[in-house]
């Protein structure tokens, strides 16, 4: 009897093998991903309506956290800085293209040069942050040593509310430019040489060639560069935490850092309020995610 059912089972599996196999392969991955990524997104929405210290039971407060956020000047500072990050971080794309064009040659040793130019991206942002903190140091930093030669007084970049965000963004642009550079270098490799030659015969040169012939062919690289740069800008946390810890006077905070500060630091464990900030950040990100997915979807349908 037992063997009979087993055989029936097996043949049922055999009959549906093509339909079942993908799900068997997907289950471990999907479960992990749902458990650790997808469900927490929804949980955060729920937690944002609580007053909760992360330990006992939270009490429901409705939209109180969002109302408080509306009147919180630190929130607006963070939001403003996020927009500055987003706008300036995108400079990594043209800067990366520029370096890629500079390095797209075949002279001896160029491979090593390319790798060394890529270096900043491989090292941890924590180390990048430290390196740039010293670079900006008002007493011995290279920056101030350098501008001192021209007779300018020392600037305390990280201690001055006017400059601090720009100083940190400059540090972030360093690895990000390297990333965009490598994307464009691989992209330039794939540029069709015949089209370039044809355009050359037609008299296209320099900027016109770049704009009308090369850049259109680099579109896939530009898309990826845009995606990773936007995500990088909105995820900026490490550099701020290492370089200024949000200061001076909270002027270098961004949403991701402010959220962490509210939820997990000496200012108290306000999980609900932190989650509300995270929800706002998520909604900003969602605009971009939707655009990315839409572009990918069009691409998929095109095939």
């Amino acid at each position, binding site marked *: 009897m037992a063997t009979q059912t087993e055989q029936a089972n097996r043949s049922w599996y055999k009959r549906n093998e093509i339909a079942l196999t993908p799900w068997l392969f997907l289950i471990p991955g999907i479960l*992990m991903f749902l458990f*650790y*990524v997808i*469900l927490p997104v929804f949980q955060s929405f729920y937690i944002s309506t609580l007053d909760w210290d992360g330990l006992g039971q939270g009490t429901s407060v409705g939209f109180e956290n969002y109302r408080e956020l509306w009147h919180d000047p630190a929130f607006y500072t963070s939001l403003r800085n996020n927009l500055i990050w987003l706008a300036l971080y995108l400079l990594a794309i043209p800067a990366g293209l520029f370096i890629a*064009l500079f390095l*797209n040659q075949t*002279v001896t040793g160029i491979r090593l040069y390319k790798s060394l130019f890529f270096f900043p991206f491989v090292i941890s942002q924590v180390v990048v942050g430290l390196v740039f903190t010293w670079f900006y140091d008002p007493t011995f930093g290279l920056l101030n040593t350098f501008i001192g030669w021209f007779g300018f007084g020392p600037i305390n970049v990280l201690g001055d509310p006017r400059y601090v965000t720009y100083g940190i963004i400059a540090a972030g642009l360093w690895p990000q430019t390297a990333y965009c550079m490598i994307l464009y270098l691989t992209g330039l490799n794939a540029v069709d040489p015949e089209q370039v030659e044809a355009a050359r015969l037609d008299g296209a040169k320099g900027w016109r060639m770049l704009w009308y012939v090369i850049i259109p062919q680099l579109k896939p690289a530009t898309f990826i560069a845009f995606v990773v740069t936007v995500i990088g800008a909105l995820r900026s946390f490490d550099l701020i935490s290492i370089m200024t810890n949000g200061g001076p006077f909270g002027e270098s905070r961004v949403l991701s850092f402010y959220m962490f500060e509210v939820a997990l630091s000496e200012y108290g464990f306000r999980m609900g309020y932190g989650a509300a900030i995270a929800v706002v950040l998520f909604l900003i990100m969602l605009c971009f995610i939707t655009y990315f997915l839409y572009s990918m979807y069009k691409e998929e349908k095109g095939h």
Partner: protein
Amino acid sequence: MFPTPVEKSSRTWQLTYQSLLPVALILWLLPLIAVALFSIKPAGDFSAGNYWNLPSQFAGFENYGRVFLESDMPRYLLNSVFITIPTVIGAVALSAMTGFALGIYRFKLNLAVFFLFVAGNFVPFQILMVPVRDLTLQMGLYNTKTGLVLFHIAFQTGFCTLFMRNFIRALPFELIEAARVEGVAEWRIFWFVVLPLMKPAIAALAVLIFTFIWNDYFWAVVLTQGIESQPVTAGITSFNAQYRAAYHLMSAGSIVAAIPPVAMFFLMQKHFIAGLTLGAVK
């Protein structure tokens, strides 16, 4: 080729280009060169105000020796290894399977599942922070390497699935059809036909994930606390607090923390770059 190869241009530009290259590189890496220089200076140089001149003597062995023998750095490095390696194995294994399922089979929810992974991969960390920390606490895995590894595996599966699936899509489908005609079981097709062809993708992902996880700082701070589980990115802040203003030691420590992914990159450069471009630009 664009821009015009230097070999075809004037002699002057050739010479200018050749001399411009090293200058540009030095400027580009100046902050790093500074740190490397700091790390081989003796402590006395800093108190004497000699920041940017050559070291008065070579103290590299002494500085790095102290980092390795007198500080907690080796412990943090070891933690990083025990966090990074299992994550790489786990994420690559899971995504080889999900990528296979989504790349080979046609079923109704295929694209929906795929986009679920892709979308999740773009989510800001902060929206996951409170629930994931709470989850980890409840499982009793807070401040353990296991807790960190499990989360990293799950999160990286999103990106890895995107990569693996696109790679598998580009494989010749006739191979799989031929195997099916032969009556080979589906899981054997995965193991004996597809997996061997996926070696380049696996290599690319492995180096990339290694770098991502080694350099992770945010989750290390959120999910771990002490020396028994913190990776080197988080450990270096305690290290720096311990050696405040000892620039020669902080520099040496930073360099030690940065070296493993750098070494990985130089050893596996080709795979690394293939991974970064998501295999989209060849």
